[in-house]
């Protein structure tokens, strides 16, 4: 630290006081630096992070990916609990609760993944060399992947029919994309969650009204293409909402 300049515009006493304080602080900083704390504060990247870094060709994105569960720990616990309860309910009632719950649970997690008003360090992230859109993408992927894994585990544990077990993955994509789009446009995670849960509930109810089967939303092959098209449209909306805005707002 430079301790020579102490502000010539200050009065004599203030200059001496500040000089003394600078000296004390500099001595203390030097003493601390000598303790060589660097190795103890360094956390080696795990295998998953190293692999993700190679795959994504960005250690920053890899760190964003692997830290996502820790940022959304409560969501992760809630997802596991809800899907476990769904598995138990499926086993006891014979109805595919896991398939109906998985998209809703994932949508809630996605809405809380990233963005203005959601991520506490959003403004800081916005000034980084790694694009905040890419950070959003890897976080959404992390949430989606974890929920898909939990859903598959819950489905396997509940012994649901194969068609229903994997049928929910495509609707889950659409519902997650809807939650992401609404969260980024409205800059509110709660709005994203409400849109995801509300949209999914509405779809189940409307399909039941139309066909008489509430599982139609996850079993109908005719819905898969519309789900994917809807998901693509929602992702486009999310990308638009996260672009660098034009000058005048």
């Amino acid at each position, binding site marked *: 630290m430079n301790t020579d300049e102490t502000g010539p515009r200050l009065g004599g006493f203030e200059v001496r006081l500040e000089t003394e304080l600078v000296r004390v602080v500099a001595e203390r*900083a030097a003493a*601390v630096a000598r303790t060589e704390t660097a190795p*103890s*504060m*360094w956390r080696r990247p795990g295998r998953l992070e190293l692999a993700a870094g190679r795959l994504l060709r960005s250690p920053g994105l890899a760190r*964003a990916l692997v830290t996502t569960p820790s940022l959304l720990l409560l969501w992760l616990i809630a997802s596991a609990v809800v899907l476990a309860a769904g598995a138990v309910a499926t086993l006891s009632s014979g109805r595919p609760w896991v398939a109906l719950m998985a998209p809703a649970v994932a949508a809630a997690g996605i809405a809380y993944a990233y963005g203005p008003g959601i991520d506490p360090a959003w403004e800081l992230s916005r*000034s980084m060399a790694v694009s905040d859109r890419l950070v959003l993408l890897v976080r959404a992927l992390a949430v989606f992947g974890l929920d898909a894994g939990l859903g598959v585990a819950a489905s396997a544990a509940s012994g649901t029919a194969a068609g229903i077990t994997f049928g929910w993955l495509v609707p889950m994509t659409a519902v997650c994309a809807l939650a992401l789009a609404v969260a980024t446009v409205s800059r509110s995670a709660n709005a994203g969650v409400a849109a995801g849960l509300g949209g999914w509930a509405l779809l189940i109810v409307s399909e039941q009204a139309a066909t008489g089967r509430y599982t139609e939303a996850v079993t109908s092959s005719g819905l898969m293409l519309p789900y994917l098209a809807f998901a693509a449209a929602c992702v486009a909306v999310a990308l638009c909402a996260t672009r660098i805005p034009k000058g005048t707002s």
Partner: protein
Amino acid sequence: MNVEIADLTRRFGRTQAVAGVDLEAGPGVFGLLGPNGAGKTTLLRMLATVIPPSSGTLRLLGRDPGGYGGRRQIRRRLGYLPQNLGYYPGFTVADFVEYFALLKEMPPGRVPAVVAAAVERVDLGDKARSKLRTLSGGMLRRAGIAQAIVNEPDLLLLDEPTAGLDPEQRVAFRALLRDLAQRATVIVSTHLVEDVGAACSEVAVMDTGRIVFHGTPDELTVRAEGTDAAGDSQLERGYSAVLAAARATAGARS
């Protein structure tokens, strides 16, 4: 020049937050003074490439931040401390600084050493493994400063950096600023006139989105002469006199 601004404006709906700012800044500590709502934070956010200007010309570190490539190059050499530092409560100080070092695309092999150095420079070495949620406001501010300086930036933007720091920490911080400013442009937005007097080589005073004074702290001090401007120091009186004169001129125009 690391910062070149010409006729820069920024609007938020009907509100003109920055109204035609011209500024050039090279290496050194540049103080940005002004009352609340003067446009300091909006100007810093544009310099940090967080928001784009509504109109005008902006060049940072010799590059245009309007394009993706230029913006990415600038951001690699940029350090930014926002006014409201958001953080992840479950991260440790070292994790927090390291995360942003990686997002600044620093070579991974260098990251452990630069993170340790940045944490030590803000005197948080003994708190490096502490969770951010356990830190005081002043310590959090220092963690924010550590992430801003971790890449040894050529352009360092600090919005109210001394808020929450105790007197000893503020003195150390000023010394750190002077050290960094030997090779970098450091722009400090503050409403604490004493910080400017002690650390800055140049100062600008903003009011209602415009720069109403640009010069050295000594030149600002001189502005108090022959006026009855209020303040506890000559520099504060100079600052008050500049603001009073700017408002009188604006009032006469309207």
